[in-house]
């Protein structure tokens, strides 16, 4: 019997794993198990073009159904993996079936962190992670509606931008004193706060939700500031919980995600974990990371597939992220945590600038707003461990290209 691979998940990591296995010459059986009713699809447009109704569902698919047929993939949609026996190398499925595997790729992703307050089960409260989530909120996402967005991370701010564009009245509540608190500096956060307020978003920072009550079918969001905000729709974007339960119950090491090595191998033989659910060692940053990003999902899937194909290559990438809000393209390379200096290149008022983050003079990260050249360069500088001086970075009169030399 030839080796087979079972992939659990339906996002970027799962889809890329299929493609990379076949591209890498793997000719054994591939079974894809996903709890969702869709072949692997792209999640980033969910809070952007798909929510806006500008992108049909079939365009979300990473690859068309014919690709999976051609690749001989046994796709089990709407089926959950409910049990894992890592010793016997066998998976139990929600439809009662069992699947034996030689290699298992866990691309289980995560689920939205639920709002912890009383009344969070109100029918107007929605989360945004899947196609089904967006479809479910769509009847309430209509012109003139009052929408309360809880959490001013990427998802919350992207939803606010789409809401403005569609004539909704968004209120954004953020517990932290600033938006994008987990990822950006006060300087960049302040810029996005001005942009959103200027566009008409009622943005309130330092405010959490203490309860959600009902008034004739509408939600009343009670804030810690004492406000009571009536809402047709509440969208909570307050973080992601990695889906580790399947691995954990099987005795696989988990610690803020499923613990993997540089080849995405877990503590169980033949079992890999990739994407949002995995926690990997970063050589670049000298610590373990659990990243929630498309790039990480794709590259880890390639890493696991390469190992299965007998061509192991350690994962060592500069993380990067992007977000589209209004006409702004935010591109982030690297991780800024622990920075001791921020250098702004360009004038924020022109909506085109880059914020470089350094520690002891070493470049850690960049937030680039409508500055693709700086983004591209910084990604390379971070990877190579050498960058221009803080003074050069901050001097916008030197062409970015000249800094590359």
């Amino acid at each position: 019997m030839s080796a087979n691979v079972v992939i659990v998940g339906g996002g970027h990591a799962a889809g890329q794993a299929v493609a990379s296995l076949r591209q890498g010459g793997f000719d054994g059986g591939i079974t894809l198990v996903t709890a969702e009713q869709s072949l692997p699809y792209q999640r980033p447009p969910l809070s952007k073009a798909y929510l806006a109704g500008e992108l049909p569902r079939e365009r979300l698919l990473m690859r068309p159904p014919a690709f999976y047929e051609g690749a001989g993939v046994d796709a089990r949609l709407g089926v959950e993996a409910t049990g894992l026996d890592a010793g016997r190398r066998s998976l139990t499925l929600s439809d009662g079936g069992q699947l034996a595997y030689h290699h298992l790729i866990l691309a289980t992703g995560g689920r939205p962190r639920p709002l912890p307050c009383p009344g969070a089960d109100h029918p107007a409260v929605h989360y945004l992670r899947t196609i089904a989530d967006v479809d479910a909120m769509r009847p309430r996402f209509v012109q003139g509606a009052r929408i309360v967005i809880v959490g001013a991370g990427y998802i919350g701010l992207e939803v606010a931008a789409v809401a403005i564009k569609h004539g909704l009245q968004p209120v954004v509540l953020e517990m932290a004193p600033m938006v994008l608190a987990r990822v950006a500096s006060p300087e960049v956060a302040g810029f996005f706060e001005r942009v959103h307020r200027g566009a008409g978003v009622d943005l309130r920072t330092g405010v959490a939700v203490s309860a959600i009550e009902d008034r004739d079918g509408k939600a009343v969001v009670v804030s810690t500031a004492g406000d009571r905000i009536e809402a047709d729709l509440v969208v909570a974007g307050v973080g992601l919980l990695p889906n580790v339960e399947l691995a954990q119950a099987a005795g696989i090491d988990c610690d803020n995600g499923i613990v993997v090595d540089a080849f995405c191998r877990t503590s169980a033989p033949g079992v890999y974990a990739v994407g949002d659910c995995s926690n990997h060692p970063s050589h670049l940053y000298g610590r373990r990371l659990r990243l929630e990003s498309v790039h990480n999902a794709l590259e880890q899937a390639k890493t696991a597939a390469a190992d299965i194909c007998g061509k192991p290559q350690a994962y060592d990438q500069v993380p990067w992220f992007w977000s589209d809000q209004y006409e702004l393209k935010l591109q982030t390379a690297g991780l800024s945590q622990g920075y001791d200096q921020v250098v702004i290149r360009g004038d924020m008022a022109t909506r085109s600038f880059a914020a470089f983050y350094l520690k002891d003079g070493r470049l850690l990260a960049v937030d680039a707003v409508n500055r693709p050249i700086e983004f591209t360069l910084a990604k390379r500088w971070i990877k190579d461990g050498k960058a221009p001086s803080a003074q050069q970075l901050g001097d916008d009169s030197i062409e970015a290209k000249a800094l590359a030399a």
Partner: protein
Amino acid sequence: MTKITFVEYNGTERSIDAENGQSLMQTAVDNLVPGIDGDCGGSCACATCHCYIEGPLAAKLPELGDTERSMLEMAEGVTAASRLACQITVSGDLDGLVVRTPEGQH
């Protein structure tokens, strides 16, 4: 359907009947063409669909957009023939187009 030929860095050629209206990036990804990644799904954020297009049909392509130009500016191995495949839509005008792909996208 429009015939597009992808030529890998090592000379391997494959011709694809591409669907009109789809991006050149998606066409490559759907058909497992090596060397085209398309990480960001076509929002011109990543430059991982860098390719080279030459010959008479290149003149039929839309002009470089601002973001595309900037993303390419610092891409590795950029030449006058460089394009981002996500910014090109397949149409009958492009029948016979030859697209060269790089060894990798990093």
